[in-house]
């Protein structure tokens, strides 16, 4: 459980980071909190030749209120975002969801942007971003662009980030309605077997489901018209969960239904 050797880069600016990443090409990886990447490297499941450590890059840890939402920088740790009143005021779902991400020790180190870029379909923050139609701001050799959540997640652990690009921040929009997130994990802080983030606005309702597809599965349930049991059935029809050693596909589908109903109810009451 020791990684093979790699070249370590410690850029001080975003420009240097992008340069190092561009030079490394497909052989380069960003190191943020390391809570996902380091275990993969230790198990030799990932073996990047170049590691671009962004922990020394200035100006990436900011959490700023912007019109219509909150922007979270690439070095803002889960714990900082969780504690941030700015983030909470803009979108209470962020704090609520972060409390379900791992444990305090992991949240002290892991970054919210890292977790979104990592694009684990079982992770909470990608689902939150997808539910809220947020976006990811990236910087690459060709400059900066914003990628909408709907285009960002393309597969399990796969995002539309291009080789050489650095995610500098994500944007969580505020919502006009209530939100909630619920999940069932085997142990406290584990990746969930199923989870549902819900948004109920005056004119529409939708959910984002985790752990039941290759990417967060967003389902518009406006047509259920407040009948959340019916909404749960709509969601169950749209998902195609897989079995693993912790849960059968059947159980995941069932859980997603139960959680959809509960989360929509909570969001409506929020």
């Amino acid at each position, binding site marked *: 459980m020791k990684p*093979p050797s790699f070249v370590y880069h410690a850029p001080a600016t975003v420009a240097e980071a992008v340069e190092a990443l561009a030079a490394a090409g497909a052989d380069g990886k960003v190191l943020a909190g390391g809570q996902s990447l380091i275990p993969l490297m230790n198990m030799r499941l990932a073996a990047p030749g170049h590691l671009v450590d962004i922990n020394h890059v200035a100006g990436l840890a900011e959490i700023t209120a912007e019109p219509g939402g909150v922007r979270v920088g690439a070095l803002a740790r889960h714990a900082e975002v969780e504690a941030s009143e700015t983030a909470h005021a803009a979108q209470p779902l962020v704090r609520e969801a972060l409390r379900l991400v791992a*444990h305090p020790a992991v949240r002290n180190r892991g970054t919210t942007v890292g977790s979104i870029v990592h694009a684990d379909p079982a992770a909470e923050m990608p689902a939150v971003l997808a539910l809220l139609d947020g976006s990811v701001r990236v910087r690459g050799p060709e400059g900066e662009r914003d990628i909408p959540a709907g285009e960002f997640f393309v597969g399990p652990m796969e995002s539309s980030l291009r080789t050489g690009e650095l995610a500098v921040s994500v944007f969580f929009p505020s919502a006009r309605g209530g939100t909630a997130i619920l999940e*069932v994990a085997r*142990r406290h802080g584990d990746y969930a*077997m199923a989870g549902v983030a819900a948004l109920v606005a005056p004119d529409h309702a939708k959910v984002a489901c985790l752990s039941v597809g290759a990417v967060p599965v967003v389902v518009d349930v406006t047509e259920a018209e407040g009948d959340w049991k019916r909404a749960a059935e709509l969601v169950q029809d749209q998902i195609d969960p897989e079995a693993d050693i912790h849960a059968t596909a059947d159980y995941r589908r069932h859980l997603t239904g*139960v959680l959809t109903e509960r989360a929509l109810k909570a969001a409506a009451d929020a």
Partner: protein
Amino acid sequence: MTTKLFGEPVRRREDARLVAGNGRYLDDLGANALAVAFVRSPHAHALITGIDVDDAIDVEGLVAIYTWEDLPAGVREPLPLLIPHPALTHGRTAYCLAKDVVRHVGEPIVMVVATDRYIAEDVCERIQVSYEFLKPVVGLETAVSGPNLVHEDVPGNIGAHMIQEVAAKDGRATRDVIAAAPHTLEFRLDIERSACMPMEGKGVYARWDADDRSLRVYSSTQTSTSVRMAIAAKLGLPLPKVEVIAPDVGGGFGVKIVHPWPEEILVPWAAILLNREVKWSEDRREHFISSAHERAQVQHVKVGFDDEGHVLGLDVEILHDHGAYTPYGIIVPIITSTQLLGPYKIGSYRVEFFSVYTNTVQVTPYRGAGRPQGVFCMERTMDKIAQYLGKDRTLVRAANFIQPDEFPYDQQMIFQDGRPLIYDSGDYPESLRKLKDLIGWDEFPLMQSKAAEEGRKLGIGVGCYVEGTGVGPYEGGHVQVTSDGRVHVSTGLTSQGQGHETVFAQIAATELGVPIEKVSVVTGDTRRFGYAVGTFASRAAVMSGNAIALACRKVKEKALRIAADALEADPADLEITDGMVHVVGAPSASIPLATVAVLSNPLRYAFDEEAKRATQFATSGSMDKPPVAEGQEPGLEGKDYYSPVRSTFASGMHAAIVETDPDTAEIKILRYAVVHDCGKMINPMLVEGQIHGGVAQGVGGALYEKMVYDEHGQLLNASFMDFLMPYVTEIPFIETDHLETPSPLNPLGIKGAGEAGVIPVSAVIAGAIEDAEKIVIDRMPISPSDLYALRDSSRTSGAVSRLRNTQ
């Protein structure tokens, strides 16, 4: 300041060191040692057809690569079968490095030594091993029914077959008794694999002194003395030239009593060969796939009983999965077979087990060591009888209890130590009474029906066990009082966090009448104590505790004799308080124990002020007698051993209230209660600590942990990501109450407490879930996904039996 510390909740003296990060574990030692990594088999069953190191030899920092071919004579042999047994007709052990065949994923094939572990792993990656695949054998029932063999020369994959039977009083065989019983039940139970999973994996660090021709080995082991003998024997070294030390050890739970592990031989061997310090510290993946697991059994049970629920006959057939090898013999199924009887008098009993090879990691004892399976069997049986008769589950248990006036009680079987299974003492009815009080057993039905009105599902479960603890053959203790008044205690067995530095010091302080601050304790260091068995089977307190007490008594006797001379008093009139020997009732006529230590050693040379007192012109001894009297030894020290006739039997009962979510099938333990009897408690706080840790592991085994092998013999969850050891957030508050029924077998009246907590948990939780769900629970562990599936099939097909409603 009192010195009567036996029985007091003294705080753990080791914690300041361990909690502040000042412990010294194996990997903290030998910072400059060469590092070892292994190429381990990625396949469950294969012939090794070639090993190609061409790609690897150029790696900078590589020191050596070894395969089986490179090993010297003693090391080429299969590893020892530690506990032979006549029923183990086909015992098999592995080689240090695989020879021709691999029989489980993780078996070591090539040893790599390099300047650091990173490089060693780089080298491993570049070594190409070619294989010819053999059919893997996975799963107990496949193993006994299928044509594929784990070992070519072991037909049916059956390593051991054993039948034990205790006929009815009238001589009838168990099966006849059951056939004639008023009621009978028949069912199957399944328990899956878990593992010890100590926080610290195994590890070995060896230093060879080429000039002195001596070897020092540090190993994260539960038995340094026996590792030492194994190393000396395998490497052909004179025993006095080998030292083995267990440094701070981050948990063992059984896996580190197995020895010698291949690495415990290979690392010292390489250190000598290379004349360099060499170290191997196991990583978590290695621990998952190449150490040991336990628990997996399938049990077929038939029971006959009367209207009161008295068990007239019990017939249990066990398939026990012992993985690819049997280094620890068949201790686990023997313990299951014998300890299954618990606190009960069973009319007649027949138990038959088949110990079966599979292409999986070997099975050796894990805390509880076969008892959780036995207790699961017996307690599920009790629940089923109660259910069948419509009786309260505690009443059926009580009807079968051995009564307090029936001790010593002979279960007429042979226990794991080869000695009769005779319970020394206990009070089971009182335990049950306390437990029912603690959990509120009689009030629960009301709570349950109230919850039901709110749509909540609550259930209660109970489980009882008896645990043979303190198995022999012996342990020893050495106690020395030095002229500075310090008391040095040593014992050969090892510590893995139990708190031995505290309890052994409590015993010594109490016996000698010295402040505990004066007492230091060393364990598991062969430089200090050469004879020992090891720490396992809840034996350390019983064995070494008593040995240390006996050694202290020798020291005290000598101290009083010397002090009596000095004080011109009768030794019978003397006692020791706070480190001062004084005449009873006359504290001024006294002499410090430190001075007694000085006087105990007649000197020629005064190396300090104190020592002057013992020199030849200072003492006033008789000129007609030698300075060291005949039969005496210089120094204030004593050594003694404790060797019991047989084990002492602790007992306990647990109860739990669980809640199951009607929608998500999540299972939550609302309350967990334990009544525990380990005889006299040396330190109730440490006993509780042991119980808490045990229950936590039990909860793991009941609700979270299992080793998931696929049909190819791949362990699918070989990491803490997917092997779900419970976090502290999964463990309920544990309520405890104690009972102290002293053991008549040893001077201190104590029984072991180390394993107890883990033993009945699966049985208790299964009973509680069954009570909440009214669905039969015969397989553990159980996950929410499993429970959901059970609900589903009991709803749709009736394939899973529903309980009759007894309300």
